[in-house]
C-alpha cells in the first residue's frame, strides 16, 4: 500500500468553529459578484461545460462551516452559500479543504493530484465533475485575478490583498496541522 501524502492542510478546527455563528446572508452578494466576474472574463467556460451546465454542483469546503451550490445554467448562472449541502437534488459533490478548492479554481493545484492524495472527494456525476474542472482549467480561470479584475483600476492592490489573504489561510492551515501533529506525538 502506498501511503498518501496530503498536499493541502485544512484550517484549524478552532477557526472553523469561530466562523460557525457568522450569518451567510452577507456572503451571498459577494458570491454573485464573484461568479459574474469570472464568467465575464471567461465566457468560454459555459461553452466547455456544454450540457453539463444544467447540473447542480455541491462544493463543500470541509474546513469551513458552510458550503456552496453552483448552478451554472445560462442565462442565469448562480451560486448560493448554504449551511450544509442538501442530501437530494445535487448531481455532483466536490469536497476538500478550502485551499484545495481555491487551488483548483486559480490553477495553482492539479485536480487529479488532489484526488490521488485524497485531498479531494468527488461523488455523483463524474462526467459533469470532469467537465467543470476542464472548463475552469481550459480558459485559464484564476479566481483571485478574476475577482480583483472586477474592481477596475483597483485590481492590482486588490489582487495583492486577496493573495495575501490566501497566504494567511495557508499559514493558518499549516500551523493547525502542526498543532494537530504535536497533539498526536
Amino acid at each position: 500500500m502506498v501511503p498518501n501524502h496530503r498536499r493541502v492542510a485544512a484550517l484549524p478546527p478552532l477557526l472553523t468553529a469561530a466562523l460557525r455563528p457568522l450569518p451567510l446572508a452577507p456572503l451571498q452578494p459577494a458570491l454573485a459578484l464573484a461568479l459574474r466576474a469570472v464568467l465575464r472574463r471567461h465566457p468560454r467556460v459555459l461553452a466547455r461545460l456544454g450540457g453539463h451546465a444544467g447540473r447542480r454542483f455541491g462544493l463543500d469546503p470541509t474546513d469551513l462551516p458552510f458550503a456552496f451550490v453552483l448552478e451554472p445554467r445560462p442565462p442565469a448562472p448562480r451560486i448560493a452559500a448554504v449551511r450544509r449541502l442538501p442530501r437530494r437534488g445535487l448531481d455532483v459533490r466536490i469536497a476538500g479543504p478550502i485551499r484545495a478548492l481555491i487551488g483548483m479554481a486559480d490553477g495553482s493545484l492539479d485536480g487529479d493530484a488532489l484526488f490521488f492524495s485524497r485531498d479531494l472527494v468527488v461523488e455523483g456525476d463524474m462526467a459533469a465533475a470532469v467537465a467543470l474542472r476542464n472548463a475552469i482549467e481550459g480558459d485559464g480561470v484564476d479566481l483571485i485575478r478574476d475577482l480583483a479584475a472586477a474592481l477596475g483600476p483597483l485590481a492590482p492592490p486588490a489582487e495583492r490583498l486577496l493573495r495575501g489573504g490566501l497566504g494567511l489561510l495557508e499559514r493558518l492551515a499549516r500551523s493547525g496541522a502542526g498543532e494537530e501533529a504535536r497533539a498526536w506525538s
Partner: protein
Amino acid sequence: MELICPAGTPAALRVAVDAGADAVYCGYADETNARNFPGLNFSRAEMREGVAYAHRRGAKVLVAVNTFPRAGAVGPWRRAVDDAVQAGADALILADIGLLDYAARTHPGQRLHVSVQAAAANPDSVRFYVEAFGVKRVVLPRVLTVAEIAAVARAVAPCETEVFVFGGLCVMAEGRCSLSSYATGQSPNMNGVCSPASHVAYRERADGLVSRLGGFTINTFGRGEAAGYPTLCKGRFRTGPATGYLFEDPVSLDAAALLPALREAGVAALKIEGRQRGRAYVEGVVRAFREALSALEEGRPFVSPGLLSLTEGQSTTQGAYRKAWR
C-alpha cells in the same frame, strides 16, 4: 532531444509553451483524438489561436487525430486532418492507415507522425509507415526496453523516434487494448476515451474510497492510501486466495533518470503524458524536464525532478524501460 508536452486546453498550451516546451500536442474536442474527455480539447478557433501563440514563441504544435475512424463514417477524422493542416499544425499524429493514406495524398507537404496508438513496435512496422506514407517520426509504445528502443531507432533512421518519459502509464499495446470496452462499451481506440467519466462512480465508505467502472467495483483505497485512475488495468482484483493488482499498480512513468540512456539510444523526442491534467501539472512537469534536459546538455549533474506529488498513486516506475520481470 525535443520536449513534447501535453495541452488539453488552450490555457495548458500557453502554460506548456511558456514553461519551455519545444512542441505541444493537442486535439479537437471530439472523438477524433484519444483524450476525448468532457470539457477538454480545442475548438477549431482555439486551435488556430493556439498554433499562433506557440509559433510566436518558437514552439511547434502537433495535432493528434489518433483514434480509428468508424467504418463508413470517416468524415469527422478527415475534417480534423484538413482543419489541423489549415490551422498550421507542424505535424499530425495519426494511427489509422486509412487516415494516414488520406493525409499523405491530400496534404503531401504535411509532416506526419505515427501515434503510439498504432503500436508500431518493430522496425518492419515503422518502415511500412515510412515507405507507404512518408512519416517522419514514430511514437513508440510503452512496452520496449531502452535497448530495444535503441535497436529500433538505429534500424529506422532517418525516421525519428519519440518516447514517453513521464505521466500516466499504459502497459497494454496501445490501440489494441479493449479492456475499457468490456466494462463501458467505449475505448480509447474508437471513442477516444479509456474508462469514460460517465461510467465512473466513487463512493466514500467507512473502509475507504470505492471506485466503480461500468458497474464493476475495481478498487477500494484504504483510508491512508493514495488513489489511482479508475481503469481496469489498474484494478485490484480478488483471485482465489489473494487480492492484488493483476496487471499494473496505480503508478506513473518517470524516466527522468534514463534521459542520458535515451539520448544514447538515438531518441529524437521525449513526450510527457497528461492532456487531461491541469495547468499546475503541465507547468510543474514541463519546467522540471526542461531543467533536466538543460542539465544533460550542459553536462551538469542530474537532479531528480521531484514530481511525486503529481503522480498517480503517488508512486513512480520506469516501466518497461527497465523490465525487471524478464
